[in-house]
């Protein structure tokens, strides 16, 4: 740990989250605005941890119906099936579309789980003022921001199929209630990671190092 490292907040400086301008700001000074772009200034995202927890817990709750309820009903003259996310992937695998099965598995199973677990880990470590591997945790956060959106894949696939396959009495596809729950999980985890402030990961380090 180099002794020279100083953060903006320690010096009462605040960087604008829109234009990046660093300006001086007193703590408890009431609302302040950036002199260049007039955006409101904050040392850290306000209410970051509690908002992030709120969205994350809601996402955990909806994750259950998202996986247990069918997201797609497929009907034709000869067959009728209701698919949950997992049974849809298994069906794809069995019918020989291995590549697609793997893509859907990554987008609909791996990424949401990764997001839920990683955000929980980040929030707990931040709340415990942990100084454990801040660089790796920041990298994990960057990864979450990057991959989170790809979970929407299944929603789009179901939407396209349900809209397109409406051939009277021959074949019909319908979106199931699981699709709503799953879409909500994706939105909620994206909101949670939006509200998370990665600078909180680094704050305990500053308090520890002698200045």
């Amino acid at each position, binding site marked *: 740990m180099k002794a020279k490292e100083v953060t903006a907040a320690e010096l009462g*400086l605040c960087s604008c989250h829109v234009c990046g301008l660093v300006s001086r700001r007193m703590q408890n000074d009431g609302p302040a605005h950036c002199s260049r*772009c*007039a955006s409101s200034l904050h040392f850290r995202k306000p209410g970051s941890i509690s908002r992030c927890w709120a969205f994350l817990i809601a996402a955990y709750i909806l994750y259950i119906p998202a996986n247990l309820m069918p997201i797609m009903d497929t009907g034709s003259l000869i067959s009728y099936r209701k698919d949950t996310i997992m049974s849809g992937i298994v069906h794809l695998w069995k019918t020989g579309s291995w590549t697609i099965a793997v893509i859907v598995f990554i987008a609909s199973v791996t990424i949401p789980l990764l997001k839920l677990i990683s955000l929980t880990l980040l929030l707990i470590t931040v709340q415990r003022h942990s100084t454990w591997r801040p660089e790796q945790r920041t990298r994990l956060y960057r990864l979450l921001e990057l991959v989170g959106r790809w979970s929407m894949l299944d929603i789009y696939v179901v939407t396209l199929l349900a809209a*397109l396959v409406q051939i009277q009495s021959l074949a019909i596809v319908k979106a199931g209630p699981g699709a709503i729950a799953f879409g909500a999980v994706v939105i909620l985890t994206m909101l949670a990671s939006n509200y998370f402030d990665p600078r909180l*990961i680094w704050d305990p380090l500053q308090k520890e190092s002698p200045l």
Partner: protein
Amino acid sequence: MTTDCSTIIACHECDLLQREIPLAPGETARCHRCGGTLYRNAPNSLDLTLAFSITAAVLFIIANVYPIIGIELQGNKSALNLFGTVRSIWNQEMHIVSLLVLVTTILIPAFQLTMMIYLLLPFKLDRVPTGISLIMRLLQSIKPWGMVEVFMLGVLVALVKLTHNFIVIPGVALWSFGGLTLMLAAVAASFNPRDVWIHVERQPGREVSG
């Protein structure tokens, strides 16, 4: 109250204060503690972004007018464009899913492209459009919610699923969606918000707040 902080920069990911150094064209400055991107010297970033945005806007219109995929089964045909997809899902009482698709694939990309062109075209004519700060703030906050590239992958997955049971006819919009995905990625990669602020500060006596 005001201090000259013009050469000081704080990392957005770990808040470390650092002094700005000049960069050669194409170089990126990274935080020396957490490795987050601080700023870039991207030559012509605003011109490039404008060019990509206009191309993307043209492709966006084509992608929304023409059908994406058509299917055929025993002489029965069905083909839909993007808005038709949204409407069809709405009529099936899946309002939330329908709105989700409408917002993430139509409204937000359209808004993003309009704002980009509104912002960057006046720069080219040596003017500063009104409400820059508001636009920059909006562009930043809606950025994660435009999901054209995810939708594109969704179209391809749906295409493969449909080939099991139907004769699939790829529509014109399928190709323009592919192009749009590339162009939006190019817009995101070339747009450098820092250059906007540098450009604004070069115009003396301009009212920036909005």
